[in-house]
């Protein structure tokens, strides 16, 4: 498996599981993107824009840093 291109990780899949009823297709529809984009975000292959990140947090009704985390180490 190739290394992830970004150090940003997220809990979208876990949050969807906690919600129970939200599929990738549902989330894609709420965000106005394709299912492929939601899959790419969940797999860490694509970092969404700040605006979309806030939209995702709003869908789950949680703060932004409950959804996205930045990997340990240099922040430069």
């Amino acid at each position, binding site marked *: 498996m190739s290394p992830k*291109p970004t150090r940003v990780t997220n809990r979208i899949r876990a949050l969807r599981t906690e919600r129970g009823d939200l599929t990738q*297709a549902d989330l894609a529809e709420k965000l106005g993107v394709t*299912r*492929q984009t939601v899959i790419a975000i969940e*797999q860490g292959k*694509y970092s969404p824009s700040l605006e979309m990140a806030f939209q995702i947090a709003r869908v789950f009704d949680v703060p932004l840093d409950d959804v996205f985390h930045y990997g340990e180490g240099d922040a430069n």
Partner: protein
Amino acid sequence: MNGSSHKLPREPHRPADDEPTVMGMEERSAWVQVFVFVITTGAYLAVVLPRAWSQPIDEVEWVVPLLWALGISIVSVIVGSIIAGVGGAIGLTIRGLDVDSELATDSRDKDIGRHARLRTHWVASVLGAGTLILAMLDVDTFWIGTFVFVVSSIGAIAEAVVRIRAYRRGFVA
């Protein structure tokens, strides 16, 4: 009637999590772009280079082959992308997935396009500087025309390869 029936395409169903989908439209276009430019540029070089070796360079007929290669490239990318899109739509319909939502383009496609243009920006510099140097050296127009076409094709291929890589392995904007 024996009860057997043709299988009609299924009505679109709600895809389950991680249900495989088909390649998006933009990635299909990128693949078409790679194949078309490799073939047309190779064909152009296969036609004009033997002429350049076998006759005086100022007598080499290169304008018509270049215009053909350019025209075929443009038309093939457009037609190839349409055919690839239709193929994807048929595949989705057979699998019972919604064509409009699965083949749509979104912000990720735009970001990948921007990322690819940024990563292949060097081609424009090579093209500009190389053409200027060839003109300063007063080489035959055959070399200038061929250089511009080949470097532009390399740029188109490189841009498409970066896009494909970003779709498959991910990228950081």
